[in-house]
């Protein structure tokens, strides 16, 4: 693998669907008999986002089984104003993958004031509110709705150049679904959806995010009715979708995030040295709230006072904080800076290539997660695979709890209970000294089935097989997929769009 990826050229004047009416997704456009996947993966490397790993592995797995893969994402420069870029992520991208970068960027995260209108400069909050309203008029998603036309045209253009056999839409953003629907509606190209966390469910707070009658609800039902498969990251989310749409229950699959083996391959436990100071670490996007971080810092401070092993301990927080103007400069960084005297520090993001090295410099890990039973996160698998003791700071009824259950070097979940968090830190400190190599090996073995490669390989093979099976007939020529219910639904889609 190398960092040199193939880039498709974006042409603003993409053809309309009428121009494409002669081509279809029957496999007639296949190059050398290879099926073609259009993969809507906004967040694909080099975006320094947690979803980048899943996307990269998904694309790689399709390549591995012989598919042509065209990834559609947004320009790398657009991520610079978002959560940043990490070009080392490209090292593991299969060089046969083609990437189409669309000239899209989140307007609200623009930080170049020269590009602001006077109105925006005068009333920035009102400007953003109006922008959200405009976005929602195009598609019921406030931040990305305005991207709809560009993504739709890009997908149609790609299909014209190289007919697709399958479209896989990874969400967020959900506006990808409009493009998936458009290609299905106009050319009958089957599609699958990787919701990861799910749209109609509020994974952070629990409960339903929108009703079935809402505009988003209508879109979700329409998309899922005809999808080949729906991927989500854990069982509770899958249950939600199976309950909400019983008729697609069999097409809902749990595809866990897993971890990248190379992220932990070189983690060799340090020799803990309480005199020099144990080092606890957090690695991941800092997306939790100030209350949660405040609880961590308070418990940390008290644990340091109470636990002799932690007298000189340090807590290093690494990862991305904030976006746009607030990047690495929000209330959380302020909170961290106030705890500098207690050995708490923020060290900024870690390049993917340096992840293993970073873990290797720590004695224990702190797993801070938002949400509850619907949230798993990817880092829990990676944490587990390091073989290091883990302090959990998340709800007891959290999907990470289910993943970690039985982990011998885990201090257990206790929500934000201060006393129990203090105990957790102290237990973890003791574990660093007392854990045997056998215990660490056992932990790593427990994590082994969760390598991203293993999980995605299975999911991709299953999806590809389904598509190929449904598309192949006895002559060996792929027949058309089940026709979309064009007329009425198309009209409805148009209405929703309007």
């Amino acid at each position, binding site marked *: 693998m190398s960092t040199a990826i193939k880039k498709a050229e974006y042409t603003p004047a993409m053809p309309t669907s009428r121009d494409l009416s002669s081509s279809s997704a029957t496999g007639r456009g296949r190059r050398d008999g290879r099926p073609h996947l259009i993969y809507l993966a906004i967040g694909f490397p080099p975006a320094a986002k947690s979803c980048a790993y899943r996307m990269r592995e998904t694309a790689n797995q399709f390549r591995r089984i012989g598919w042509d893969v065209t990834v559609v994402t947004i320009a790398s420069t657009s991520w*610079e*104003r978002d959560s940043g870029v990490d070009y080392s992520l490209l090292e593991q991208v299969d060089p046969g993958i083609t990437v189409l970068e669309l000239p899209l960027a989140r307007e609200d995260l*623009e*930080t*170049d*004031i*020269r590009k*602001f209108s*006077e109105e*925006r*400069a*005068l*009333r*920035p*909050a009102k400007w953003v509110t109006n922008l959200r309203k405009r976005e929602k008029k195009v598609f019921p998603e406030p931040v990305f709705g305005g991207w709809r036309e560009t993504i739709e045209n890009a997908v149609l253009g790609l299909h014209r150049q190289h007919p697709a056999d399958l479209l896989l839409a990874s969400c967020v953003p959900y506006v990808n679904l409009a493009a998936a629907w458009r290609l299905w509606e106009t050319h009958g190209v089957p599609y699958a959806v990787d919701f990861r966390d799910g749209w109609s469910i509020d994974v952070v707070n629990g409960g339903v995010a929108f009703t079935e009658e809402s505009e988003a609800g209508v879109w979700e039902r329409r998309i899922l009715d005809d999808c080949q498969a729906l991927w989500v990251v854990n069982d509770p989310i899958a249950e939600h979708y199976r309950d909400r749409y019983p008729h697609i229950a069999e097409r809902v699959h749990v595809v866990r995030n897993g971890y990248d083996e190379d992220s932990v391959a070189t983690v060799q436990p340090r020799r803990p040295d309480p005199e020099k100071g144990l080092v606890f670490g957090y690695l991941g996007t800092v997306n939790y709230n100030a209350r949660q971080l405040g609880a961590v810092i308070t418990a940390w401070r008290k644990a340091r006072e109470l636990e002799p092993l932690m007298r000189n301990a340090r807590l290093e927080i690494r990862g991305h904080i904030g976006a*746009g*103007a*607030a*990047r*690495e*400069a929000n*209330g959380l*960084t*302020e*909170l*961290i*800076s*106030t705890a500098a005297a207690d050995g708490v520090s923020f060290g900024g993001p870690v390049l993917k290539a340096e992840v293993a090295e970073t873990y290797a410099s720590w004695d224990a890990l702190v797993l801070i997660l938002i949400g509850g039973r619907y949230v798993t996160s990817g880092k829990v698998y990676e944490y587990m695979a390091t073989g290091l003791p883990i302090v959990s700071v998340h709800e007891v009824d959290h999907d990470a709890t289910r993943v970690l259950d039985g982990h011998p070097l885990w201090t257990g979940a206790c929500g934000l209970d201060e006393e129990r968090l203090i105990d957790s830190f102290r237990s973890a400190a003791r574990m660093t000294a007392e854990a045997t190599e056998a215990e660490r090996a056992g932990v790593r073995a427990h994590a082994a089935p969760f390598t991203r490669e293993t999980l995605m390989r299975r999911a991709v093979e299953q999806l590809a097989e389904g598509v190929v099976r449904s598309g192949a007939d006895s002559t060996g020529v792929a027949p058309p997929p089940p026709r979309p219910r064009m007329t009425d639904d198309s009209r409805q889609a148009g209405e929703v769009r309007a």
Partner: protein
Amino acid sequence: MSDVLLVAGVPPQPGFLSSAVHRLQKAGARVHLVGAVDTEDLPADVRLDGLCALPGDIAKALPARAAARATPAERVWTRIRRERWAREQARNADVLVALDPHAIYAVWRMAQRNLGADARYGVQPAVQAVIGRQGTPPPGALQRLANNLPSRRMVRRNLTHIINSAPRAAIDAVTARPIMRSKAGTKLWLAAVRTPKIPDRLRTKVARQVAKGMDWADRPEGEALILTATAEKLRTPVSRARMLGDAASRELKAGIPPQDLNSAVDALLAIADERHRAGKQPAAANLLNRAMKLAFDRVLHIDRLTSPLAEDPEGFTAPFRNSLAATTVAAPRGRKQPAAPPPTDRPLRLLIATSANDNFLKLIRAHYESHPQVEIRYLDLAADSKLKSVTWAATQMLEQRLSAEETPYGANAEEQLRPHLDWADTVFVDWCVAPAALFTILDPGTTRIIVRLHSYETLSRWPYMVDFSRIDDLVFVADHIKDLTTTLVPYLQGPDAPRMHVLDNAMDLSGFQIDKPSDARFQLGMVGISQVAKDPLWAVEVLRQVRRHDDRYQLLLVGGDMNPNVSVASRKYLDTLNRELEELEAVGAVRRFGPTEDVPKALADVGVILSSSVREGCHCGLMEGAASGAVPVVRDWPFFAGRPSSARTLYPQGWVVGSPEEAAERILQTTATEETWRAAGNEASAHALGEWDWPVVQQHFDRLILGNHVV
């Protein structure tokens, strides 16, 4: 090395600032800071290369006219640009950085002047900009000069600004408060707005800005003067009408009766008529509504001792009677079917409707809720947002009445109200205001509609928006209110007018019968002093008169004070009252009881109950006082005095007096001895209980509501 200028609209958190400065310096920048900073909280480890610390509240309103209107971002910029140091740094900086949303505009403005600088929002983008400049040679002197030439965009913007806002630019200099408060200033601006041969658009713009200056100088009458003078010079009738309307409404808003109300109303009605004839009903409705709101503003009729409407009802309402649009609105639509007789095979379904105010409904509701022959529903139109939105929607109502076709509002009203009309056999709408207008927008089918008009409604615009042809029974609380209403609404004098009834308010008076102590004989009392119309000064004068004979007489004022802010008349009245009371309170001759829920208790010590009002419907406080055994002394309410119906016809002979002197005479006479006082009190109490107590009035209501209805 790059120079970075950080701009803060609000004081940055110490840790945040420390980190920002550190990161920028690490990236190789010299860091300067201007804006809101708490210097005491400045972290010790922050080593700024330059600092201009301004107060922490620069984004908040400042006591300057421009700043009061400005956004927080503008305020920050206005404050920062006054600093020479900041201007110089802004010109020379390589990277301009807004630390918070309020600072963005200042950086945006600085960037217009410093074309070579990067302008960023946030610290990380600033660090990237600094890193991005590394290796770039610093600009030479010529380049720096070029960088500081204003951008074309800025030149264009400023030119437009100057052209568009010449008067605004002038106003800050020439309309300062002292000038606007001086006669010379007013004359100057009057001459300016009257200057001949100025286009309407420019004249209007100048006038509005000068008017704002007057407003800022607390001179609403000057504001109106400027607008009126301008209106006279405007060529377009519409602009003229609107300008006159604005002048009048500014005065009313300030609590002053407009100097030229008639011109404003006439002009607005003329344009409304024209729009109506042209089929432009939304515009016609809007103008008509404006005219009505001006003519019937409470400052003119409610919050003062006189009302032009009460003084000359026909004259005052003549412009509306002569207006095509207003008469179209008032034109009766009638109903397709007459109201059905009450059902005989089931209880009568009675819907009682009001909008929030149920003060006079409680006894009625309670009575019919337990009545076997009635099934009752209560509808508070203000409690449901959908109903509320169709109820208090005067302009849309007017548009519906002006339109030949059903408007979206009409359809909405139909949708909201029809289920209620379908259910009810009889609807009782309390208060002849928006709910009555709403219910008569629709053809009620066979449902009987009863509307009760209390008093103040006659002084409002609502009776002109009610379709009385769709009302079966119109209930008044007194004959004089009925007379005034029929004078104002000609339809009510015609053959198709609804049946009209006079029914006393529902009051439970039995609870007021409390034995009074002997010394109550010298205690005068008034219930309710919260409006100018109650005219407590008249009662004070009565008190003075009786105290000349016997200083044992005292006055008890029950109720909350009037609000001085509703009108200038109210404010002046309250000032006078307070001055008058100060001396009397000092010697214990007047006591203020304040607002109370327990009126019977307040009346227990009152021996003489006064009604000093200039107008009333039926004075409940007086009636309650009479029921308690206090001797009633009623002023012949000036709004109605001398007319066929007045206080004199509402109350027994002897209770009503024409002047404070007569009142004093009656008081001295009836309270001459305890025996005479108690006798007069008992007589009054017997009359009140016999005429106005709920068991009596209830029978009148039953006759109205149920008629001969028997299941």
